[in-house]
């Protein structure tokens, strides 16, 4: 074989360059996060307290879990707008189940099952009925909000078992349980994405769906899995949120789909598909939570947070477009 040295040396450089981009992005995010934390610690009395910090981690954890699920869908060049609504309904379902006497583990499992069902319906609409993901999940967002309010008549569900709330409030080995939940989600998701055939197929489908099909990939199955995973992780976020606030409220998670999407995109996922990782959305979620938390502590009108998040999404997607090669 001619010139084996060239063949061995050059690709390593290319691979390193590609790795470096993702790495640099994550490092930038981490730096930004550190900067914000330092600034808030100096600028407010309350930021660098144990209470606020665990609060920050808990809220960040819930968004991180949603953002990881969202990332799977975004890699297929899709979107899951229903994520926030799933949080609300899942929180309601799990609360109602427990109120009616279902044991806690069973109630949680059933609610996760509900998440699977929602994801299945999304995939069915998108794959079998040919609806654009945007429309399918937007419709589902609206419908799920209605279902949640119907189930509760707009009332909150209080008086949940103490052992349930403990799930989100307690710590194990000195680490908040919610943070452990993130690890329990992130590690298998990372393995799935980067070390399994399914993960490879996910990128292929997001990259070129027809090429994936012609390569013998079962595109339908890949899409089903992505939407089911996203909805199930949102249901998990709903369960954890209900445990954290101690009551079931059907309107919980209003607008969280945008937090999840923003976290994912800030973390380097491309809305054009086929680009994304697991650490990215984790960092993105932490960043957004810090912005929210800091704005509260600085007494900034909370409505500004929405404006900032919106602006951030535009800026990040614009940058994402810039780095795409023009053909």
């Amino acid at each position: 074989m001619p010139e084996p040295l060239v063949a061995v040396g050059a690709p390593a450089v290319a691979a390193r360059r590609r790795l470096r981009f993702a790495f640099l992005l994550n490092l930038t995010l981490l730096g930004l996060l550190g900067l914000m934390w330092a600034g808030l610690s100096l600028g407010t009395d309350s930021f660098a307290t144990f209470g606020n910090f665990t609060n920050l981690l808990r809220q960040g954890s819930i968004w991180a879990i949603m953002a990881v699920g969202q990332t799977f869908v975004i890699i297929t060049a899709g979107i899951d707008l229903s994520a926030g609504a799933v949080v609300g309904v899942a929180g309601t379902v799990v609360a109602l189940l427990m109120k009616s006497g279902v044991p806690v583990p069973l109630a949680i499992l059933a609610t996760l099952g509900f998440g699977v069902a929602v994801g299945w319906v999304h995939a069915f609409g998108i794959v079998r009925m040919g609806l654009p993901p945007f429309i399918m999940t937007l419709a589902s967002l609206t419908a799920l909000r209605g279902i949640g309010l119907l189930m509760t008549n707009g009332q909150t569900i209080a008086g949940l078992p103490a052992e349930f709330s403990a799930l989100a409030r307690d710590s194990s080995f000195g680490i908040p349980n919610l943070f452990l939940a993130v690890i329990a989600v992130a590690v298998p998701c990372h393995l799935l994405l980067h070390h399994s055939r399914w993960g490879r197929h996910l990128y292929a489908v997001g990259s070129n769906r027809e090429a994936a099909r012609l390569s013998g990939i079962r595109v339908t199955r890949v899409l089903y899995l992505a939407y089911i995973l996203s909805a199930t992780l949102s249901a998990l976020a709903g369960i954890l949120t209900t445990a954290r606030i101690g009551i079931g409220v059907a309107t919980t998670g209003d607008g969280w789909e945008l937090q999840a999407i923003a976290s994912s995109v800030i973390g380097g996922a491309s809305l054009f598909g086929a680009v994304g990782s697991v650490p990215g959305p984790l960092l993105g979620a932490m960043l957004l939570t810090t912005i929210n938390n800091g704005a509260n502590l600085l007494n900034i009108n909370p409505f500004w947070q929405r404006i900032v998040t919106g602006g951030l999404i535009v800026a990040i997607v614009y940058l994402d477009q810039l780095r795409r090669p023009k053909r």
Partner: protein
Amino acid sequence: MTSSPMGVGPLVEMRNISIHFGGIKAVDDVSIDLYPGEVVALLGHNGAGKSTLVKVLSGAYRANSGQILIDGRTVEIGSPRDAKALGIETIYQTLALAENIDAPGNLFLGRELTTPWGTLDDAAMEHAARQAILELNPNFTRIKEPVKNLSGGQRQSVAIARALHFKARILIMDEPTAALGPHETRQVADLITRLKAKGIGIFLISHDIHDVFSLADRISVMKNGKLVGTVRTQDVTQDDVLGMIILGKRPKIAA
């Protein structure tokens, strides 16, 4: 029907294939066949139905009627997976590569190698892909680069390496030189000659007779979804074939 050029049975027979999309007949009752070690060129204008016809063989489309036989046995090809399982590999005009994935990822797409734990064996895939691709194109160095960063010729190398790596018995090449310069086009021609010698049957699809006349053993011409006819290249001139393509007329000499 053409008699067997090598005294063996046909590798592929497509009998009375029809495909319609809505009310339009893209392929209308077409029968073609292919023998081991033979190159059959499928010629016709753009939209004549030649790509559609072979996509039935590669599992991308399903025929509305007709029959496919491999080694004389009727087969059902319902998906690209089925076709690959039968040893049918296709190099698509669009190359059918996943842009954001590197060459080894594309080469093994849908047929990834895994470790005993079920995880992707990226090292093994990279090694095999490097060998397969360098054999075709010694200048190919950017093997870990997403294929969107590669040139047309390099992308073509990936697509061809993918087809060859899995020991195709039947190879479908749809406009294989459309994206290539003269030098690379010659390389593909050399490759076809080598594959032929190994006994692989090749369907070569083109809209340009000059690309295929020297390579093909037989030429099947399609027009408006119908088969104009199949001729042996040695029996006809390029003008005869041009007449078939343009006028849809069979030359007198054709069997």
